[in-house]
């Protein structure tokens, strides 16, 4: 018996076997392709994760004992990759100060601040650059002064005048006695060595290479590990590293231009909770947010179900044409549609006001704006409800409806007592997910009303959802504060997760009733 089962499981068709081999081969090829850059970057953790994933996939499809695993593994892997990983990463970011001014690591910040202290020595020479090696193999900058055409050799010891060099039209040295001059191809390949070379011309000055030119520069800033500070010898400014904030600060608290990314614990969460700009309007925004999501689901569902029932009537003619037409709003990209709607609601020139002879300032009055976003969002969303309702209607068992009819139930009663409850069992999970989607429907608000109207001086608008409000708080016009935005996202995630969990629980008890 066991043997037989194993055989059944294993005795797949030849085509099935070939497909399996092909897919696994593709996975292996993909794995190798992905592994190479990981090895190149010495990302051993990444490599370990990749190896583990590949091993799991191979094990799953080469073993014969556990069939369900074959269905569960791909879904689980994708769930981890596209759902859980982003949430974990967002939560991770929410504990950091990652954002504008804190994007790099500390070494990067030090490098950038020191680099910004390199200035051309006033009156210093400009050079045309060539690079070569002396007979002993020492790397040498071969420089031609652009002012007087004199030629120089620069090594770690400093500059020495170079005689007898041949220069080309641009002034670059092409040959010099005692040196092998690199051509551009060699220079390109070996620029790493060039980057290592520093040619001093004085105690604080040196030759700075920039492209195929060079100039005499002064480096005024230096980093001292002892005091963990950067000193600018010219201005006398000293920036001390604040490793908690991820910034170099002067004594009076002025930050250097570049900071770095550090872990700041719960600071972002604290500022979400304590920021009066966020805490104050939170309840109002939250209430409208729930209203918007619930309203969107209700209107789209009512219209979607109504049209689905109309088209589900056997006596209805031309259903195919209607169906095609109705799917159109759903089939068109919502981005473009929302922008079109935004134009149609223009007070002076918009189609809506002109068509109905109104002069409503759709963007200027809170309830008008709210009606506007609900109208547009309903238009965008109902075809989806229409599709799923139609599907669910066609799957309904006809016997209970017939029984109801025999018992003398009218259309309305039958719908209320039989059709709708049966439909809801199938559709409630979809309605909940639609609610969750609309709860965070960033596009609908951002592209349509942009959160308008804004009372003077207020940072929260009448149609703002938590997500659009958080987006503006975190990103402003262009400045980015990812750490803070992540903290807000985690809050929104918790809210949506709680609401959904409660709803699913209610649904389950509902299922018990029917």
């Amino acid at each position, binding site marked *: 018996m066991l043997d037989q089962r194993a055989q059944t499981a294993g005795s797949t068709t030849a085509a099935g076997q070939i497909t399996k081999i092909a897919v696994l081969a593709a996975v292996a090829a993909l794995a190798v392709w992905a592994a190479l850059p990981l090895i190149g970057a010495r990302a051993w953790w990444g490599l370990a994760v990749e190896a583990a994933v590949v091993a799991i996939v191979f094990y799953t499809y080469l073993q014969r004992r556990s069939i369900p695993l074959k269905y569960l593994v791909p879904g689980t892997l994708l769930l981890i990759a596209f759902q859980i990983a982003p949430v974990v990463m967002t939560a991770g970011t929410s504990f950091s100060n990652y954002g504008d001014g804190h994007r790099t690591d500390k070494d990067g910040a030090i490098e950038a601040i020191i680099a910004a202290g390199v200035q051309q020595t006033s009156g210093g020479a400009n050079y045309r650059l060539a690079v070569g090696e002396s007979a002993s193999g020492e790397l040498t900058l071969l420089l031609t002064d652009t002012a007087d055409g004199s030629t120089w050799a620069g090594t770690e010891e400093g500059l020495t005048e170079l005689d007898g060099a041949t220069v080309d039209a641009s002034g670059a040295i092409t040959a010099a006695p005692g040196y092998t001059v690199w051509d551009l191809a060699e220079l390109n390949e070996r*620029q*790493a060595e060039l980057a290592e070379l520093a040619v001093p011309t004085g105690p604080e000055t040196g030759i700075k290479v920039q492209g195929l*030119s060079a100039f005499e520069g002064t480096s005024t800033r230096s980093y001292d590990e002892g005091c963990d500070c950067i000193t600018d010898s010219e201005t006398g400014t000293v920036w001390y590293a604040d490793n908690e904030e991820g910034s170099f600060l002067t004594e009076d608290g002025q930050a250097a231009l570049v900071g770095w990314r550090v872990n700041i614990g719960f600071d972002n969460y604290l500022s979400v909770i304590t920021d009066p700009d966020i805490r104050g309007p939170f309840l109002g925004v939250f209430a409208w947010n729930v209203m918007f999501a619930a309203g969107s689901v209700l209107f789209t569902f009512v219209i979607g179900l109504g049209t689905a029932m109309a088209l589900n009537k056997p006596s209805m003619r031309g259903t195919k044409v209607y169906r095609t037409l109705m799917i159109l709003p759903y089939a068109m990209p919502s981005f473009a549609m929302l922008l079109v709607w935004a134009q149609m609601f223009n007070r002076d020139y918009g189609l809506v006001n002109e068509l109905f002879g109104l002069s409503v300032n759709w963007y200027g009055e809170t309830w008008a704006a709210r009606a506007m976003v609900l109208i547009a969002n309903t238009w965008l969303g109902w075809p989806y409800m229409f599709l799923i309702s139609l599907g669910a209607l066609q799957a309904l068992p006809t016997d209970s409806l017939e029984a109801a009819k025999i018992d003398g139930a009218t259309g309305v009663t039958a719908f209320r007592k039989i059709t709708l409850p049966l439909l809801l069992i199938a559709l409630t999970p979809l309605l909940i997910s639609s609610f969750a989607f609309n709860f965070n429907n960033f596009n609908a608000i951002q592209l349509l009303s942009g959160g308008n109207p804004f009372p003077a001086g207020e940072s929260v608008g009448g149609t703002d959802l938590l997500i659009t409000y958080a987006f503006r708080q975190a990103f*402003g016009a262009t400045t980015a504060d990812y750490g803070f935005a992540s903290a807000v996202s985690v809050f929104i995630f918790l809210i949506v997760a709680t609401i959904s969990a409660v709803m699913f629980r209610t649904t389950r008890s509902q299922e018990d009733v029917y």
Partner: protein
Amino acid sequence: MRRRTLGITAVSAAALGAAAACGDDSDSGSDTGTEFSGELVIWADETRTPVLKEFVKDFESTVGVKVTVEEHVETLRQDFLTAAEQGQGPDIVVGAHDWAGQYAAAGAVAPITLTADQQSALNETAVKAFTVDGNLYGVAYALENLGLIRNTALAPEAPATFEELVAAGQAAGTDEVLTMEVGVDGNAYSAYPLFASMGGYLFKDDGAGNLDPSDVGVDSPGGVAAFEKFAELGASGVLKTTFDASNVIPFFVDGKTAFMISGPWALTDVQGAGLEYEVTAIPGFEGQGPASPFLGVQGFYVASGAKNAVFAQEFVTNYVLTEDLQLKLAEAGGRLPALTAAAETYAEGNADAQGFAAAGENAVPMPNIPAMDSVWEPFGRAEADAIDGTTPGADAAATAAQTIRDAVGA
């Protein structure tokens, strides 16, 4: 001793990690018969990419380095930062000057040193625009600013003052007196010329081009006067919050207005409609200062993590500053070159370019300091509120100024 001497190490250290990889490549025999020994990667937006692709060919053949220009639509600014953080960015990125503050603070771009000759060959404001904390971070190639575009059939004379403009716009008998982008959220960029004419300023300039973010001038006497003007112009229907990106140009093209305040990007549509038009300076209010627009500058940034730092620097400091490249980019983009000599050649016999250059004579570079990010939204909202009449001008100015101060922490 090696590392002691100069910031060279600092600047080039970023190239080290990448350099190791480069070295490996050459050892393992990347000489597969191509004539190029390396690659230089440039990121640009959709309008510049085709022109650059054409133009880098010269550079390729002179220095023997393959130059790849990659197009990044819409999200270039952010893409570059993200990629640079991952160490996967390009060597060069082409963008607007007001990105400089953000890029420099992220340590994503490297300072550039131009010789005195090179600096003086460039438009002075364009150099200032790319300067952050005393360092130059980008090399400019094109300038753009708002101007007044006039339908000469409807209004033959260029107005000398804004009052004349309004009178001429009304006399033209069109639906609108003028169009200018406002929108429901306001638009600080297009409002700035009128704001400046009334004597308003955003941040105090110390005279050397350094802005003091703690001195906000939105509610200075000039600023308040400007917002009162907005309210007045809104009440008389000259400015409307319903003018937005979707109708400003179409109304002008359809002859519904004689005047439009817009930039060089509008000309393609205007020319396509076959209108008789002229570009002139935006007139200031009578008895007030000039209506100086913001100057936007496009330029080349060198990434601090450039894998091919030597040729990236060579491209940006020498090649970009050739008259030929600047002229070609100007012709493709319809913008004035940043190189003064190229700008003169370009404007010769080009009435549009001359018009925008005249309009930009008093232009100030759009501030590239991070504090500017806190200005756009409150300023725009206050402008919209004043024009809509929901808030009196003085209150709108005060509210905006307060919001900006709170955000800047001044």
